């Protein structure tokens, strides 16, 4: 066929490497993925009067967000310099800047982890946040009850063996297998254990240290019952309850056991806020981690890094800029507005 030999050599597709086109198509899907979450956040936020914005309530620190923005911008800049190094066959420079980018990604995750730990400390987690004062008081009473239940079990199990054996052995076996979720079912045996502890306290042959432990336990239990009664009567306010709990936590005998009881802070729309916060920043952090893996892959090449990796570095650079781009929007939306 004559037209075969005379036909011009068409280059099919776009004048860019296939891998780059693939990366851009992937980023297009990523834009839609993140904008779905960001858009949902904006819309939920606009439709929720009283959304928590006070930094004292949300424990969002603007300096942490701002610092993370700077860290990501700097890392984006370093990625560009690394790509310049690759294109100029200066692979040592490329490696240096890719290494710095990886380091900055670690810094970003470190600051993020610090922020997350604050959220965990104040129990700002989806589904954990009381939205009214009454809910806050109920929650603290629930947490306090759990502390006391655990203490009951711990004290009963730490009994001297000579005393533990004659007591009903079946019961303790049953107790050992019970998890937190079944606290309700635990109630009768716990009450029995409590009575046994009471008997032990009044027995003459109990050692002094054991008595001290038991006294602290019963003091705490009495305090709990008193506060719980007030909570049931709705005769205590959140600030008053916070003050009571503060005093209890400072008690040298049993204060340390009360660490799992959180500071009371009702937050209207707090659960929705926490869900959105963890969803957005969590998915972003996941992207950062994936980016770090991509950087590690190229850094593992060491001195073998050559121009064959140019496209790879360009593509992970594009990905990393996108991760930066998402944070550029998350920072004002979550921390400032």
């Amino acid at each position, binding site marked *: 066929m004559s037209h075969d030999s005379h036909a011009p050599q068409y280059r099919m597709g776009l004048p860019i490497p296939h891998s780059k086109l693939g990366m851009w198509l992937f980023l297009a899907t990523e834009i839609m993925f993140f904008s779905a979450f960001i858009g949902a956040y*904006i819309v*939920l936020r606009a439709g929720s009067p009283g959304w928590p914005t006070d930094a004292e309530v949300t424990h969002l620190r603007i300096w942490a967000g701002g610092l993370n923005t700077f860290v990501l911008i700097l890392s984006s800049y370093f990625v560009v*310099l690394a790509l*310049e190094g690759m294109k*100029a066959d200066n692979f040592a420079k490329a490696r240096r800047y890719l290494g710095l980018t990886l380091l900055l990604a670690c810094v970003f995750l470190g600051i993020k982890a610090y922020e997350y730990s604050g959220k965990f400390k104040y129990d700002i987690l989806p589904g954990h946040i009381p939205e009214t004062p009454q809910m806050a008081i109920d929650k603290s009473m629930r947490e306090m009850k759990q502390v006391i239940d655990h203490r009951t079990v711990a004290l009963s199990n730490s009994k001297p063996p000579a005393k533990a054996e004659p007591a009903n052995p079946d019961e303790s076996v049953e107790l050992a297998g019970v998890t937190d979720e079944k606290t309700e079912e635990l109630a009768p045996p716990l009450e029995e254990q409590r009575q046994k502890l009471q008997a032990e306290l009044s027995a003459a042959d109990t050692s002094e240290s054991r008595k001290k432990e038991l006294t602290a336990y019963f003091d705490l239990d009495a305090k709990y019952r008193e506060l719980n009664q007030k909570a049931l009567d709705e005769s205590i306010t959140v600030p008053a309850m916070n003050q009571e709990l503060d005093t209890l936590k400072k008690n040298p005998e049993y204060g340390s056991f009360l660490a799992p009881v959180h500071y009371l802070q009702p937050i209207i729309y707090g659960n929705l806020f926490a869900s959105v916060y963890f969803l957005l920043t969590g998915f972003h952090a996941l992207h950062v981690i994936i980016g770090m893996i991509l950087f590690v892959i190229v850094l593992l090449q060491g001195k073998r890094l050559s121009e064959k990796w140019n496209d790879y570095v360009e593509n992970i650079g594009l990905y990393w800029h996108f991760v930066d781009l998402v944070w550029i929007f998350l920072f004002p939306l979550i921390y400032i507005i």
Partner: protein
Amino acid sequence: MSESQSHSYVKYSSIFFALCICTVLSILFDVIDLRAHNLFGLNGVVLLSAGVLSIACAKALFVLIYFMHLKFEGKWKYVLLSPTIVLAMSLTVAITPDIGIHYYTNESPQIDYLEQAQQAALKEGPARNAEKSHVE
């Protein structure tokens, strides 16, 4: 070749500084805290949002155009990105009347909580201040 590279090197650093300045600007918006003020007859929150989001858009454009080299790419960038951006925006636009604006009477427990909280705050003005002072 080397000339153009050294040229772009300088440009990259100026883009980096521009991005830093933008970040400082958006933090300044937070420091000024427009929420309480209503300027030019506009709600403070709207002003704040418009301000910081336009800064964010400027930063995003800097990154897209220079760091992601869209300035130097062919026309395919429009084909690829414009439908993406339309589709991305459309979801937000589509759910705004239902959830963002509430064209119906918005009934949610949180709205009742807010009313209760506001009433309680009115009733116990001084007590509420005491509560604030207790917060770390």
